[in-house]
């Protein structure tokens, strides 16, 4: 199997790593870089819990080969914190109790952060559409939608 030297930026920090062709981006993030905020669940693109931002765009990292992201920029949930400050979406999730078991939370938080960057004032339908690729196994969607709506009203996003 082929091995590849790749460079990528994760949460602002550059990494030079060597990966085997069959390594997924999700495995690279969790197992090699040891950032376990991004979750591994269905590993077939159905549940969206492995969502990260690839060049700012929500992407299911279980369906991307690590070698494909050579030269690209990845943001995981660990990268949303600025200093000691969590972002407006994270704050709103806490305030609205939008966390039950918590397993889907990193994916929702990161996808919602990207949504608000692209569309600062989404309607409830915009939110439902944008979050359509992420499943909450506790089915706590109401609180999640409310939290994102609330975060969109905040000045600091």
């Amino acid at each position, binding site marked *: 199997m*082929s091995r590849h030297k790749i460079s990528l930026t994760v949460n602002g920090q550059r990494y030079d790593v060597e990966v085997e062709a069959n390594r997924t981006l999700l495995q690279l993030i969790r197992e090699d870089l040891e950032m376990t905020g991004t979750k591994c669940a269905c590993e077939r693109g159905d549940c969206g819990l492995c969502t990260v931002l690839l060049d700012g765009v*929500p992407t299911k990292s279980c369906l991307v080969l690590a070698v494909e992201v050579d030269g690209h920029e990845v943001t995981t949930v660990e990268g949303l914190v600025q200093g000691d400050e969590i972002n407006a979406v994270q704050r709103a999730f806490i305030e609205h109790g939008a966390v039950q078991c918590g397993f889907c939370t990193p994916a929702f938080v990161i996808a919602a952060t990207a949504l608000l960057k692209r569309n600062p004032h989404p309607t409830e339908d915009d939110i439902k559409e*944008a979050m359509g690729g992420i499943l909450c196994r506790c089915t706590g969607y109401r609180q999640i939608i409310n939290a994102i709506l609330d975060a969109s009203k905040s000045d600091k996003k």
Partner: protein
Amino acid sequence: MPLPKFDYTRPKTMRKLVSALAEHKADTKIIAGGTDLVVLLRDKIVRPNYVIDVKGVRELHKLSWNKLGLTIGAAVTLNELLDSDVVKQKFGVLWKAASTLADPTIRNRATLVGNVCNASPAADTAPALLVMDAKVEVVGKKGKRTVAIKDFFKGVKKTALKPGEFVRAVKVPNPPEGARGDYLKWGRTAGEDLSVVGVAALVADSGEKLMRVALSSVAPTPLLVPDVESAFKDGGSLDEKIERAVSIVQSKICPISDVRCCKEYRLYMAGVLTSRVLKRLLGVADVQA
């Protein structure tokens, strides 16, 4: 779980891509978005020793439009297609179909050409491409050939591609003057599921001039239903003509029962959706629309 082992290459030019593919032929799979391929690799449904990435070739990222129509390169994602005003305004049926495929996160990565090459009977963009009479541009070591989309699908997950060939682009001709199109997808949930039935239609005038209907998830391949236009040649009210079109559609499809629903329900819903989409496009009131 690790994926099975393979070698990966990302050629930077068309010439290198063609020769890399010619070298190992049947032992190779192309990756563009990877949203189907990685799942097939994981399930060991495909076991290539070589995976060739088309995203390194700049020209395959091109989405362009001119007086001949739309050209969608192999690396163009569905969200790039959806972000195009030209596609939205002039190729409405394709835009609508692309917007129903999987979910927005998948569409950031998944490509239209990949949806075509995966050749699922449930491929959402296929019925739209069928009614638009799209052409598939195939490239191999021996050169280029063009395959009509209706001849491209050969069976469940089977295409007209020969070993060593790949799809460079899908070309969609501009629709005839005054044509209107739509795609209706019936699924168990609003997002993130394959269709129970999908129906695309393209019509002009009251259906006499142009009447094409194509479906997904009702046969081994996405299907352009032949002879639907004959329903609009004879007399009767528009409602009666639509009813005749529904009968033609239901007589030409052969749905199966699967995890999503039984074949009887698919046959019934194919009729309901055909009626609904034609009524919508022909301006006939439909209480359920």
